[in-house]
């Protein structure tokens, strides 16, 4: 039996050595820091976290716990196209947490009902993902307020994915050492340590590698090639259509009514496409005719309420350009500051929470096309 175990050990030794390296790298990158620890640290006011775990998702379950602990005055709902709103956009005394990890409009009322009475935010910024109102969308609409990722650790999955990542070079940094933000952020997770990618303490997201190398051919959507191909094929957020789904409009209407009852002011918007991508969509003629119909319908809907609505689908009209976009559907922090200023100028309740003059100055003064506030505000 001893000889058998020795031979088995020798057989598995190469694999064990590889995994030893992998586990060491993951452990030293704080990949296995528990969700509970993260919640406690953010709730205690630690503003310098950058949570970028590769093998353990930063799920909505975690974010909801943080939201409940912080009870912010302002929050955000929507999918990843609402993740660029930052705490720095608001005045110092205004607490903010970005909860955008689910664009499922069916679930927003679930979210409201999960908030205890008296703990409601004053204002919610809502990104209304255009494709969710297209009845032919190929995006799965779950009826539950949950992200697809869960913050539970599946060790078999970690073992497999980390090995694959190791072979595929994901354990090598994509950004130069001087561009990593470890000086002003405490990175948690491999992606945060190596690439300065991750979620900040305020729930917003930082695209580290793309900020460092905005025009790198290896970027997945370099020159918006991926987005333009999806527009051509009409897939994945770009399914064409000529109608809007009234069921989802009704659901949104119910959400707005319930928010009003709870004393919550909603500022909603259609998130932007990169101008090149948007022009491609428009050039297809009737292909995306649901978009102007959606805009009109939402205008009518919001006019009947006390809430505000904006259409930023074509951000070029608001002074932005392709250079301010991470990819074809995700604007940068700078683009979203532009959006935020436009909304604040036109919505009194939002304006009361910000210093517009300072924000405009920050927008003009920033040299980067993608980032405005490098590090977090202490």
């Amino acid at each position: 039996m001893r000889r058998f175990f020795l031979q088995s050990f020798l057989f598995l030794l190469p694999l064990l050595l590889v995994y030893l390296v992998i586990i060491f790298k993951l452990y030293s990158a704080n990949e296995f820091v528990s969700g509970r620890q993260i919640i406690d640290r953010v709730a205690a006011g630690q503003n310098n976290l950058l949570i970028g775990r590769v093998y353990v998702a930063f799920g909505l379950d975690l974010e909801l716990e943080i939201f409940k602990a912080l009870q912010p005055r302002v929050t955000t709902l929507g999918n990843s196209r609402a993740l660029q709103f930052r705490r720095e956009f608001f005045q110092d005394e205004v607490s903010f947490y970005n909860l955008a990890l689910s664009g499922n409009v069916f679930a927003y009322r679930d979210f409201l009902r999960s908030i205890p009475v008296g703990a409601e935010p004053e204002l919610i910024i809502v990104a209304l993902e255009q494709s969710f109102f297209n009845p032919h969308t190929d995006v799965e609409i779950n009826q539950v307020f949950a992200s697809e990722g869960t913050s539970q650790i599946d060790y078999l999955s970690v073992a497999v994915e980390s090995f694959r990542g190791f072979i595929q070079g994901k354990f090598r940094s994509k950004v130069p050492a001087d561009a990593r933000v470890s000086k002003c952020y405490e990175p948690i997770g491999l992606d945060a340590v190596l690439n300065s990618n991750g979620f900040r303490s305020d729930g917003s997201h930082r695209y580290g590698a793309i900020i460092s190398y905005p025009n790198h051919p290896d970027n997945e959507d370099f020159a918006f090639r991926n987005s333009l191909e999806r527009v051509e094929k009409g897939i994945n957020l770009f399914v064409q259509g000529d109608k809007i789904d009234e069921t989802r409009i009704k659901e949104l209407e119910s959400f707005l009514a319930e928010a009003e009852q709870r004393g919550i002011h909603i500022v909603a918007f259609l998130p932007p496409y990169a101008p090149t991508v948007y022009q491609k969509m428009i050039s297809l003629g009737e292909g995306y005719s649901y978009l102007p119909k959606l805009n009109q319908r939402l205008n009518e809907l919001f006019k009947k309420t006390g809430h505000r609505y904006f259409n930023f689908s074509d951000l070029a009209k608001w002074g932005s350009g392709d250079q301010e976009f991470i990819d074809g559907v995700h604007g940068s922090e700078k683009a979203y500051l532009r959006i935020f200023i436009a909304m604040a100028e036109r919505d009194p309740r939002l304006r009361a929470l910000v210093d517009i003059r300072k924000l405009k100055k920050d927008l003009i003064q920033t040299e980067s096309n993608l980032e405005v506030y490098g590090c977090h505000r202490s």
Partner: protein
Amino acid sequence: MLFNSTHFLIFFPIVAIGFFCLPHRWRTIWLLAASAYFYMAFVPAYVLILFGMILVDYFAGWQIGKSQGRRRGFWLWFSVFSTCLILFIFKYFDFINGNLAALAEFIHWNYPIGILGLLLPIGLSFHTFQSLGYVIDVYRGVRLPEKNFLVYALYVMFFPQLVAGPIERSTRLLPQLHLPVFFDSNRVSSGLRLMLWGFFKKIMIADNAALIVGTIYAQPENYGGLALALGTAFFALQIYADFSGYSDIAIGSARVLGYDLMLNFNHPYFSKTVAEFWRRWHISLMNWFRDYVYIPLGGSRVPTGRWLANVFVVFLLSGLWHGANWTFVIWGLLNAVYLVIGKFTASITKYLPALIKVVITFILINITWIFFRAETVSQALEILKTIGVSLVSGTFWLDLINLPVIAETWGLSKNTFIALAIATLILIAADWASEFKWSEKWWPKLSRPFRWAAYYTLIIFIILFGYFGAKAFIYFQF
């Protein structure tokens, strides 16, 4: 508990090490406890149903052994009835009830009985047959009733084969459970190798093929004849790799523990006739039907009309065993038709080259797989019609040009698809070598570094390209 899960990867070494560390008198209890834990990972309460079945059949076997004359028959039928009643309630009640309700609606009769909607206890069909086999063997005098209740319970509950077979015979497994087992590094290595091969088939081949099959069969109306035919061929690959992979893991893990389970698959797609296919596919189930249904009905030693009925009865039951759905009934009956036609045309087909016979058999079996996989009979017929029409019209062959574009919609990345193709070739080569007994002759002669390199190839394939969405084995649903 699934074999392809972290849970099992931790469970099995603990059970194996504990088994060999314990004195022989404690090992039955150890394995029984482990098997109960294994089963309770699915729906814990259902272990009570399993225990109930074990108690009934153990008691019935004991009574048959003690009784004389007609009382023996009484206890046999008591066991058969009570065991089948459980199977009927959980598996067939809603199917029959649903059909009666549809008939009642058709004749405008108010049918009052609602559905039960019970979750099928996992592996129910398998351990039902295994315990029925024991009672019948005792009745026939093939073996004496098992005196040791714990050993009998372990015979039914033995975790490697508990939920998806092989359906063991009391004359094979029960005696083994009494014998002391000693650690044998060659046997343990052999068992682990077989388990590795099973995991390769399941995780690398079956679960990746399942993604393609799932995409095509979810919306078959979106695909032409070629894509549907290929989807069916991928299903043939999926179900073989899935079920034989499971059997390999079951047999391998039992072998590690010192027990020998029966072979369940013998390279069935190399069969030259459908009859041969059914001697090589799910061998334990077909042997059970042969010994406990077909031969008692007279087998083939009866007039032709009676023989035809026997064949249809066996395959009707086999179809129903697989599932309470008309698709499985038709699947079973279609196989019966093949067997009958095959017998009557044997004198002609024997002159065909072996390769042609293998290809024809594979195509015939694939036609039955359409019914096995489809959600409804009408969906299966629609798929067959689309394939047929495309063959006649020629679009089937024209679609070959567009195959790369069609394949992009199948849900696998290009690298994984290539890896799946290579893995399938490895499977075919290994089965081929085993079919002609080459692997038995030359594999042991290969140097250790070469053999270890082969094992590492499988491991690397599994880790890099395997599908780890923890899909249950197909036959778990039976």
